[in-house]
Every structure is written in structure tokens, then in C-alpha cells.
């Protein structure tokens, strides 16, 4: 009823090309961002911050990274966890070598290491496609995991083999997960995620993003339009890995506090892949929806019996949650194989045409 574009005339291409050409979308997005920056810190307690909001945003960023590669460029990857690890270990080394530099700068720089490794393991994509490529990225996953154990230089030769956040400070405030205020960490993560998502949406809608989608949809025709597969594929690998790397660095330094090789194992790759598939391939908003469904929903479901005093013990609820989430994934993929993003799009379309069945 309120979602109408009637009267909103576009008189130039600039307005027509806007990311959100409909006014209500812009207002909605503004409200969501304002709520995330102001409302959530006021309302949420430490548990919500530490265990839900911060990891949710970090996973969403990793999902944006994978979506750039798999959703927009059509290159299936199972190495997300390892690329996150590269970012984390790179950030750890950077913090050790340059302890005085602002940690946020380290986050952004560590992404470049992940991007470099991503390009390296993206090289096979020039020859192979689809599931076969997925297998080569699986090789990246295993090789990198091996490196995280066997190259002690990466974890400063310490006995535990783990990397930990060495009480980083930002403008004098402690922001490590052990002693820092979660609200500060949340605001840092949120700012970085919002910024990088905005960057991603800009790149995707321009020439470079279009070249990725051309390669995804029809690589032969893309070449005939003058796209060099080498540049298109490797730039997708670079940008995707960059995002995963930043997500991995933030995961260690703003969420977990310490991490070892298990934090970046193949399960994490699958987790992010599920988020992208459930959320919707080729959609940025879908990444957030997918991260919510895969990561936040189980936590909420586990907490529900306690909330309503249902008297179900935690272990039982753990199992029930797994079963329910599993069934939901199956049901959802049957109903809407293109993910939440498509569902969201259909809903908006219906709202625009309401009360008529089609416009």
C-alpha cells in the first residue's frame, strides 16, 4: 500500500541508474542503517553483541566475498575458510611487525594478502570450470590449512600454534574481545561491513561487475564482447578473497580473540557457501539474509525454550535445532531455489502491484 513508485518520475539517466531508484527503498535502507548504528548499541546487551551481532556481520562480509566470486562471477569456491585464514594470519603478522599502526589499517591491508593468494589459486579457473574448479579451490583449502600448521613463522613460533589478538587499541580504547567494550567492536565491524558492501555494490554495477556477470552467464559471448577472461576471473578472485580476508582478520581480532587452524577449516567454507546459496546467488542483501538464517536463527532457536521456560534441556534443544534448521533449508530450497533475495524481490514486486495480481 505504501510501497508505490507512482509519481516518482525519472527525468535523467543518473536517477534511473541509482542503486535504489525507488524512494521507499532509500528510506527503508536509511532506517535500517540508522537502527544498526544507533538502535542496536542502545538495545543489545553484551551477549547479543558478542555472540550474535558481531559474528553475524563478519559472516555476512565473508558471504559478500564469496558471492562476488560464486554469485556474480560463477566460479564455485570451497576455499573461503582458508582465504579468511590468510587474512587473519596476515593481520596477526602485521600487528606483530607494526604494533603501532592503527588496527583498522591492518584489517584493510591484510585483505590484500588474501587477495594475492586468491589470485594464485584462481589461476586454474582460466582452464577449468564448475565442480572441477571447486575441487582445485578445495586444494587451496587443504594447502593453506597445512601452511597454517607447518609454517611456525605465521604464528610467531609460539607453542600453542594459535594466533591471538594482542590487545589492540584504537584511539586509546581497548578493542580486543577480552577486555574491550563490545559496543566499540560492534561499531567498528559495522562500519567496515557497511563500507565494503557499498564498495562491492559500486563495483558490481559498473564495467567490472558486468564483466564478471558476462563471464558467469556465457563466457564465449563475453570474450566476443572484448572481455579478457584472465582479467575478469582473476579480478573476481582477488576482490572475493580480499573480502574474505578482511572478514577473517576481524573474526580473530574483534570476535574470537584467538584462533588456530581449526577456526578456518573446511566447515567454515561450507558455512559461508550455504549462506550464499540460501541468501541468493548474485545478491548483496541476500548475503545478510543468508548469514542471518544460517548463523543467527539457530542461536535464537536454541534460546527460545529458556526464554519461555519450556523446560527442555539444552542438549535436547541442540538436537531439535539441528533437525529444524536442516528441514528448513530443504523446504526452503524446494520452495525458492534462488534464495531469500529472490523471495524478497518477488515480495517487493507484489507489493508494488497490489492489489492487482500483476502489473
Amino acid at each position: 500500500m505504501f510501497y508505490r513508485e507512482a509519481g516518482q518520475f525519472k527525468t535523467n539517466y543518473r536517477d534511473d541508474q541509482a542503486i535504489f531508484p525507488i524512494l521507499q527503498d532509500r528510506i527503508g535502507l536509511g532506517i535500517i542503517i540508522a537502527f544498526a548504528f544507533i538502535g542496536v548499541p542502545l538495545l543489545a546487551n553484551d551477549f547479543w553483541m558478542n555472540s550474535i551481532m558481531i559474528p553475524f556481520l563478519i559472516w555476512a562480509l565473508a558471504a559478500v566475498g564469496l558471492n562476488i566470486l560464486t554469485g556474480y562471477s560463477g566460479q564455485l569456491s570451497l576455499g573461503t575458510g582458508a582465504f579468511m585464514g590468510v587474512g587473519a594470519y596476515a593481520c596477526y603478522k602485521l600487528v606483530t611487525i607494526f604494533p603501532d599502526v592503527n588496527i583498522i589499517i591492518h584489517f584493510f591491508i591484510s585483505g590484500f594478502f588474501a587477495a594475492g593468494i586468491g589470485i594464485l589459486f584462481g589461476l586454474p579457473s582460466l582452464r577449468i570450470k564448475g565442480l572441477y574448479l571447486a575441487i582445485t579451490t578445495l586444494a587451496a583449502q587443504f594447502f593453506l590449512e597445512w601452511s597454517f600448521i607447518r609454517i611456525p613463522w605465521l604464528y610467531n613460533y609460539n607453542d600453542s600454534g594459535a594466533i591471538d589478538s594482542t590487545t589492540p587499541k584504537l584511539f586509546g580504547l581497548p578493542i580486543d574481545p577480552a577486555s574491550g567494550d563490545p559496543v566499540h567492536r560492534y561499531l567498528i565491524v559495522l562500519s567496515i561491513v557497511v563500507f565494503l558492501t557499498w564498495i562491492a555494490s559500486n563495483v558490481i554495477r559498473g564495467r567490472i561487475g558486468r564483466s564478471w556477470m558476462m563471464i558467469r552467464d556465457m563466457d564465449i559471448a563475453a570474450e566476443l564482447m572484448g572481455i579478457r577472461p584472465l582479467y575478469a576471473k582473476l579480478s573476481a578472485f582477488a576482490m572475493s578473497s580480499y573480502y574474505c580476508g578482511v572478514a577473517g582478520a576481524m573474526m580473530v581480532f574483534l570476535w574470537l580473540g584467538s584462533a588456530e587452524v581449526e577456526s578456518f577449516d573446511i566447515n567454515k567454507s561450507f558455512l559461508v557457501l550455504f549462506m550464499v546459496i540460501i541468501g541468493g546467488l548474485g545478491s548483496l542483501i541476500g548475503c545478510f539474509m543468508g548469514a542471518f538464517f544460517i548463523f543467527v536463527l539457530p542461536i535464537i532457536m536454541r534460546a527460545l525454550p529458556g526464554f519461555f521456560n519450556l523446560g527442555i534441556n539444552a542438549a535436547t534443544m541442540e538436537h531439535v535445532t539441528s533437525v529444524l534448521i536442516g528441514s528448513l533449508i530443504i523446504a526452503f530450497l524446494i520452495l525458492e531455489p534462488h534464495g531469500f533475495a529472490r523471495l524478497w524481490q518477488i515480495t517487493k514486486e507484489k507489493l508494488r502491484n497490489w492489489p492487482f495480481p500483476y502489473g
Partner: protein
Amino acid sequence: MNAHDSKIHGMDLSSGRNDGIAQGDELLKVENVTLRFGGVTAIEDISFNILKGEVRAIIGPNGAGKTSMLNVINGFYHPQEGSITFRGEKRSRMRPYEAAASGIARTFQNVALFTGMSTLDNIMSGRSLKMKQNFLTQMFYFGPARNEEIEHRRRVEEIIDFLEIAHIRRQPVGKLPYGLQKRVELGRALALEPDLLLLDEPMAGMNLEEKEDMSRFIIDVNRQFGTTIALIEHDMGVVMDLADRVVVLDYGKKIADGEPAEVQSSQEVIDAYLGVPH
């Protein structure tokens, strides 16, 4: 074909490359090209040329090597023998994206659109070579990247107007009917502003009305933009009406070359199409 003709509604999509090749001069020359796949010879010792500004048809029965010939011209296949000269430059082992950059655009026999993208984005994708923005300017979008998008959007809208597909501008091309998909594909090729446009069966599977529309667009592209066209087509009525000259292939060999009427009356061509008693 004067300068005035190449402009309609103030738009100019003509192949404006000032390459010193006058109308009617040789634009592309295929010399003694032989293409083999293992033991199979797809194309055997074929030579022909395409003159600037003409509509050149390549015809022949199924499996004659027509599509292979186009694939050789735009660099998908590299012939074992022979050479291809485009705009006076002899080229060897050119990649498809290099062919695109040198001014050759192409449509496919089976529509090869980017199915996940809208009509607008599909035609925009044809502008890729003309867009120069890099990662840095694109990251922040505002400023040069946006201006470039808008400038190219304007050109793309001209093509959309020309092909009369404004009503499907926002639709994902995967859902469009076949005839419209073919038209969008032509639009995408036109967006490259090519010197040479290769059309691989642009009218396959169309009904009469769609064929007439498509013929009209091909003629308009040729006459108004001055684009040279090489066309593969099985509908002989279309070929005889549109083409200035026809080359006929059969089993990878050239069996006739000349004006439509001349080719039509060639005994070898009639034999190839109808068969000969043994």
C-alpha cells in the same frame, strides 16, 4: 550512403573508424584457409573477401563449415593454413577479445545472451570495450564512473530505440521470447559499433513477421550505419534479397562465389542443395 544517412534522430552509430578504407574496398580477406580437427577437415582451402559496406552471405548445406568459417574470422579457431587480413593487417592467432577490439562483432546461431542480466545490461555489456574506468574510480562510483555509465547508457538507449525493444528494457533476457532474444543479441553486437558484423543465422526459428522485422533491421544497420555485414542464413528468400554477394560452401570447400542470381543458377550449388544421382 552519404554522411547524412548514418544519422537518425541525431544519433551516430556508424563505424566511425577512419581507417582509410573506402566504401567498396576490401575490408576482410580470407586466403587459402584450411581448418582441421584431428582427421576431419572442416574448411579446406577457402578464399574470399568482404568489401566494406556490403552484405555478404555465406550459405551452404548443414555441416558445410559456415559457422566454422565465422569462428575462424573472430578468433575462436585458428586455422592450420592460410591467413586472414582485416583492415589491411594480416593477423595470426588472434584471440576473440582481440578480434572484438579490432572491430568485429558477432551474433550466435543459438542465442548466447547473458541470461541473468536485463536487456539493458546485455546491451551495456557490448560497450565494455569502450569503457575505461578502473577499480579505483568504480569503487566510489560518484564522479567519473557514473558519468561514463550515463554516457554509455545514452548510446545504449539509442540502440534500444532503434531495435524497438524499449518495453523489455528491464526484463531479464532469459524470459524473453526467442524472436526478441535474437533482437537483443543484435543490439548487443551493435553496441560494439563494429566495422564488421557477423550474423550467424539471425532468422533461424522465426516466423515470417519476425523475419521481416529482422531483415529490416539488418538493412537499416547496413545502410544507415554503413556497417559491413557477413551473414549466414538458410532462408534463401532472405539471402537473395539482402545479400550483395554470396559465397557458397559445401563439405568445407567453396563451390560458388558471386552475385545472388549468379550463384542461384550455378549447377554446383543446385547439386549441393538437391543432391546428385549416383
